């Protein structure tokens, strides 16, 4: 079966990203397909490579990046939500006249249409949030 995942909250503050990660990993290990993971609202904050969580804690950004690499996951950060919250890739940084970017490996910035498309293409959309 083909799943799509929507994550509405950033890492650490709410459990949403943790639960979504465990669900996604379990689905992949069962042989299901993940069409896309879409990060919306504060969820875009999962995609910054600037985080440095305590050494004895999980690093959610790295967990997502590694899962993406292993399974060729499509991790999409919503551009409108990212602009409000300060998540940039090199292109966006240039376009907005910012002096740096912070997107993490395996994440890409794109539009809300990618969420709608995920809803259309996937058999099930699962939303994790506050």
């Amino acid at each position: 079966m083909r799943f799509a995942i929507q994550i509405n909250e950033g890492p650490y503050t709410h459990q949403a990203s943790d639960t979504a990660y465990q669900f996604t990993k379990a689905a992949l290990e069962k042989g299901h397909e993940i069409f896309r993971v879409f990060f919306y609202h504060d969820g875009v904050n999962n995609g910054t490579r600037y985080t440095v969580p305590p050494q004895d804690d999980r690093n959610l950004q790295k967990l997502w990046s590694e899962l993406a690499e292993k399974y060729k996951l499509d991790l999409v950060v919503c551009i409108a939500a990212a602009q409000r919250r300060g998540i940039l890739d090199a292109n966006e940084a240039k376009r907005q006249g910012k002096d740096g970017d912070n997107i993490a490996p395996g994440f890409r910035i794109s539009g809300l249409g990618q969420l709608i498309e995920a809803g259309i293409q996937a058999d099930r959309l699962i939303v994790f949030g506050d």
Partner: protein
Amino acid sequence: MSTLHTVNKSAYERNALKSCLDHALPGDAILLIEDGVLAARKGGSIAPALTAAKASCKIYALGPDLAARGIVAGQVLEGIETVDYAGFVDLAAGASRVCAWL
């Protein structure tokens, strides 16, 4: 075909579980996750509402979330089935849609 409803909020703090129970149809499944599992503990004031809902819906709670919050096996309300993340995936795959009560 049936719906899988997820509830991730404490029923003691917010109205999400109540709203979910108000909109679940007979044959639907309800999965308590994150702080939502707090409602699954025996003896709480929300227990009668969950027990009543069991007559028409199947109710599940996510085991790792129960454990994190110190709710051990014998303390879970009778008839609520504990599942792991793989079980969550199966429930989502088995329903026709998933409705999150955020």
